[in-house]
């Protein structure tokens, strides 16, 4: 059991979706796109740092690029553990929602 938090899950899925193009700017944008909320870079780096320490994510420095004025980017990719953790989260969601109709009516 990895027990991802919601925030971790969101970031990991964002990295997963971005494939090879996951770095600060794109991750933040992806999150904003999915959750419709803006996350501060500071918060994002904190969470990324946590995920790195937990071994879900690997950091990798790119070659210097022209867009950044000759500076390199920090790319993030999922590790095997990170993928396992996401799989587990997906299974958990599935079993949590199983048998519940798409439209939930509230009978009050």
């Amino acid at each position, binding site marked *: 059991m990895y027990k991802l938090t919601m925030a971790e899950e969101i970031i990991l899925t964002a990295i997963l979706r971005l494939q090879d193009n996951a770095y*600060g700017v794109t991750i933040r944008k992806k999150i904003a796109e999915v959750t419709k909320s803006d996350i*501060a870079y500071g918060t994002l780096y904190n969470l990324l*740092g946590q995920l790195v320490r937990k071994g879900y994510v690997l950091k990798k420095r790119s070659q210097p690029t022209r867009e950044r004025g000759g500076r390199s980017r920090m790319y993030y990719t999922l590790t095997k553990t990170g993928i396992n953790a996401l799989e587990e989260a997906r299974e958990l969601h599935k079993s949590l929602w199983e048998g519940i109709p798409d439209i939930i009516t509230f009978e009050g």
Partner: protein
Amino acid sequence: MAAKKRREPPALAKWLFSRLTIYEDEFLSAGDMEEEFEERVGSEGAVKARSWYWRQTLKSIPAYIVYFIFGTLDMVKNYFKSAFRNMKRDKVYTLLNLAGLAVGMSCFIIIGLWVQHELSFDEFHARSDKIYRIGNSVTLKTGDERDMVYTSAAMGPALVEDYPEIETATRMRGFHGANFKVGDKDFIENWGFYAEPSFFDVFSFPLLSGNPSDALEAPRSIILSQKVALKFFGDENPVGKTLLLNGEACQVTGLIKDPPSNSHLQFGYLLSSAGVEEFEGQNWTQLGVYSYLVLKDSTQAEAVEAKIQALNQRYIGDWADDVFRYHLQPITSIHLHSDLVGEFSPRTEMSQIYLFSAIGLLLLLVACINFVNLTMARYHRRLKEVGIRKVLGADRFRLVLQFLCESFLLVGLSMGAALLLVPVLNPVFGFLITGNMYLEGNILIIIVIVLAVGLISGLYPAIYLSSFQPVSLFRKAVMKGSHRLVLRRLLIVFQFTVTIVLLIGTGVVYTQMQFIKNRPLGFNREKILLVRMNNPELRKNYETVKSELLTVPGVVKATASGFAPFLNQDLKVYQPEGFGEDMISVRTLYVDYDFLPTMEIELADGRNFMRKNPADAEYGYIVNKTAVKEFGWDFPLGKQIEAHGSNENEETAKGPVIGVLEDFHFRSLKEEIAPLILRVRPERFDFISLKVETENLSGLLSKLQEKWKEIDPVYPFIYEVMEGIFDRTYRRDQQLGRGFSYFSLISILIACLGLLGMIAFLTQQRTKEIGIRKVHGASVIRIVGLLNKEILILVALANLIAWPAGYFIMDNWLKNFAYRVPIDPLVFLGSAAAAFIIAAATLSVQSIRAASANPIDALRYE
């Protein structure tokens, strides 16, 4: 140019963000921000982009703070973990260190608790800051002034009546030697007071049962303390029951909580003052009760003092101001600062509190020093760790923090051990602890102590150890130059100074106590029992009582006296021949014909009182040699003395001196021998002294008790052994002596632990030197001497400081005694010798091991 600048992110925000993101690769993270910023400049324009940049920066602050806190906690957690490992790795060191600190801290806590207890006297009363006792400074006919606790019974009610700023007043009077009869059982309870209903308006002694407003209303109603009630009635509620007090029936109307140990009023029962003669009188010059006042909140004590003084004019007359001067004593100051005539509980002197506080602090400091020395002794084991941490990027601050964490951990553990030690050591220090003391409520203080001790003892090693450059740490030859050790040498000197001063104190107190014990007092106080005659009927027939008691086998001699001799004397006013109209007050003992032979007091001149000469009893005087000198007589026998009565009922008696006594110590040795007059006054006799000759004292006592029941069926047999009285006189000094000896032992113990650390350090440093010396043929003894010499010089230095300090302190203490030993140089030499021997023995444990090690091991190393 301007356009280009606007395309840049705001400089201040950029800087701020770069500061905030120290946790990640700040260069790269700032790069992310800039990339998005440029994008936004393109899509939204520079102004919006700049404001976005600012918002991003500010929004990142909370995340940074959270990170910083967790990061530091994480670091500290790591430090504690490695501290634990270090402690486990070197168990002996940890144990020595823990033991020293724990003992030092537990002493400190015990002394602290005692000081707290002594300083908290009478603060439990709800109005403690507004309660005052009236002190009465009375000028006697002779001009002597006597400051006493007694006031007129009329004063309290008059004060409440006349002055609205006095909220309430209550009067009390001591009630001693009460014989209770409950059912068919007899009890003797010595401590009680007469009190009136307003007692409960002034003091906060809670009634557990009964009604405070009327419990003391009716005559002969009595309130019992828990302790006494338990003794009399067991667990039953005593309220409503009756008992006999000195033969008279009393009704129990209340059960009161036992007075706490930090109350200057200690009692087992309170007896209603209603109908008691001493409380009814309107005689303003008869002083018989204690008066306590509660002032209204806004009232100042000084203003009230003047108003109390004004009562003299109103109720007594003009002359009274020359005789009675009143002053108010805050109730909380009585225990420490009041020493009036008639004080009813033993006080503690401020100087004793200072002295013991100083000892407590010094012991704690000695323990801290110990910690420093022991930590430094094994610093070399940590150098590599420090080096590696430094190479891996730890800065100085983090290293200091790490070492401090270690010392906090160790101090915290020692504190735990100290808290466990306190109840164990408490009985050992029983001489200090007079009441219950509680650790509860001191948790904050304990935490402060841990932090302070941790900081004091951890800071120096932390700063020292973190100061090395990593490069030098990995080289073999670390640290040359012994100047580094100056501070630690000073610390050892300090430790031993404290120890030697305590040793000197122990020695001086001991010799003085021996001196007191062995000094001929001029009479024989051994094997004398004092029996109290409470029944006024008995006093008239004291000769019969004596002869009855003499029939008990084992009782050799008996004599009656007024006051317990050597405990108390009357102070009477006399006009000796040649004094003209002048008067002098002289201590006076009332004795019978057998007093001198029973006490084995020598006559220097003249004769004893004689039964066959009735004039002796009427107006014969025996004086001591000091009195003769005081009166200025060359030939005392036959000189006339006129005694003045202290009140109207007492007649004036004029008569000749019939005998002169050799001086004997009728007071404690703290006082000079004063003039003394002996007279025969049977109506004042209230004690009988018995000289006993027996192997089986308890058997004799039970026989005496039986005999006493025949003689006096009402009052119990109350006795005291004369030597016990003497011991009590010096109780506080013996306390001090015991305190010195215990604390010096502890101080020695701790200092030795410190020495162990120091010598371990020195031998470690000089391993190679020792090896080379041995190879060149030095003997083990030579090397041990070499190693010990260095520290023994420090001990010698400590002696140089401790001698004058010890002399100064103890000389001051000896000034309490009129008769004292000169300070014996042997005490100083002995203390020095003890310090040297103990230090050398401790050192040798380690240095012999170092010296006898195989030199190959020391030299092969490189």
